[in-house]
């Protein structure tokens, strides 16, 4: 399998794109997820409808189709041209945000109403309550489901191949086409994904154990 090492430069670049796109999608998804969860829990009727249509669209259709829409359809409708990386990042953020909204909503609702009233009785304003009572708990509670989102988004970045982004799977396709040795190439690339995801899970687990607070877990709160 040494022939693969000749392509290590390619592979490293592809891996870099895969990881970066995952992190970009997750980061954008956190912002969108928190905002839409807050809107869905505390917002007005119209806002709830808008948020839930957004979530329904991105959770109900395939990422591949969403990527094609953002790469081909949206520029055609708006006349704004953007490159594949922009279209890909936007799609990943919106897609992940739709899933993360569900996790954050569950976590926000798990911060029981009695604590909100207790905060009010101390004279705390709503923003103060959000910042000091709701979010610190919700962010901790959300880590385990959020870990799943990290894994599933990380693996779905392979869909970026449909708009031509040179991520890890796309690199594998090229190497396999050049070397005519698909079996080794895909096994090797699969191994890279596997090691990356396994290590990431270990790190996230470590983080969770670091910030964990007795009695504040999904199973006990929700």
């Amino acid at each position, binding site marked *: 399998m040494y022939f693969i090492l000749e392509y290590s430069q390619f592979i490293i670049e592809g891996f870099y794109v895969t990881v970066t796109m995952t992190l970009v999608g997750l980061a954008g998804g956190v912002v969108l997820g928190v905002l839409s969860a807050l809107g869905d829990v505390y917002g007005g009727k119209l806002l709830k409808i808008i948020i839930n249509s957004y979530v329904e669209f991105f959770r109900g259709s395939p990422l591949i189709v969403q990527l094609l829409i953002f790469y081909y359809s949206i520029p055609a409708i708006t006349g704004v041209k953007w490159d594949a990386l922009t279209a890909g990042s936007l799609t990943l953020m919106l897609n992940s945000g739709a899933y993360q909204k569900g996790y954050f909503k569950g976590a926000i609702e798990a911060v029981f109403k009695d604590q909100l009233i207790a905060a009010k009785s*101390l004279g705390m304003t709503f923003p103060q309550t959000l910042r000091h009572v709701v979010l610190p708990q919700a962010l901790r509670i959300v880590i385990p489901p959020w870990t799943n989102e990290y894994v599933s988004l990380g693996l779905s970045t392979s869909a970026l191949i449909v708009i031509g982004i040179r991520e890890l799977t796309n690199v594998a396709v090229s190497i396999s086409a050049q070397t005519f040795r698909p079996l080794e190439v895909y096994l090797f690339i699969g191994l890279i994904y596997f090691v990356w995801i396994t290590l990431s899970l270990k790190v996230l687990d470590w983080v969770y154990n670091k910030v964990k607070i007795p009695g504040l877990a999904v199973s006990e709160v929700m």
Partner: protein
Amino acid sequence: MEVLACKGLRKVYGDLEVLKGIDFSINKGETKVIIGPSGSGKSTFLRIMGLLEPPTEGKVFFEGKDVYGENLNLNMIRAKIGFVFQDPSLFRHLTALENVKLGLKVVLKMSDEEATKKAMETLKLVRMDEWADYYPAQLSGGQQQRVGIARALAMDPDIILFDEPTASLDIELTWEVIDVMKDLARRGITMLVVTHEIGFAKEVADEIVLMDSGRIVESGPPEQMLKSPKTERAREFLGRLLGGV
């Protein structure tokens, strides 16, 4: 001096009239105990007096000022009215100490050092200083409730409202909490307490108030209320509460 009062208080939820016109007042240093059957509106009354929800009709006065009539900062008044809930409602991500400090820092803008000092003093008062670094989930119900009292007390409120603080505790834990509350009453803290712990009322209350179906039926000093209530309704309810049939 009058701390908290209300006039013509009504509260309606949908079609349900829960409070049907209540006049009430409590002075500095007094302890008043509210009793009454389930569903009579005690909690609702307390929540409105604690400014946790507005009345449908009527006025609430804090230190003589019409709370909803003038353009007052409600949060600043809430900070001066302590509230202890039936379920301790502690912030679950914070230790006992941090629970007490939060209001001091966020609302009263104390420095971390000041807040820690004040919080530790208050935890000592409720005999919880040794548990300062424990999280709510690691404390018993009675201990949590005492931290809840410390959280309210540390703000140096002008009055503390208690809504059945021992209702979800078993007997021994109830004593722990009642002892702490008696202490506070003797220190001259103004307290309005919904409870059916008659021993507490007998020992420290200046007045017992009986509520029924959204009205104050009768009120008076404990000796009189417990021995010779004037109304038939009070005789009946107290008879049952004190162990008659």
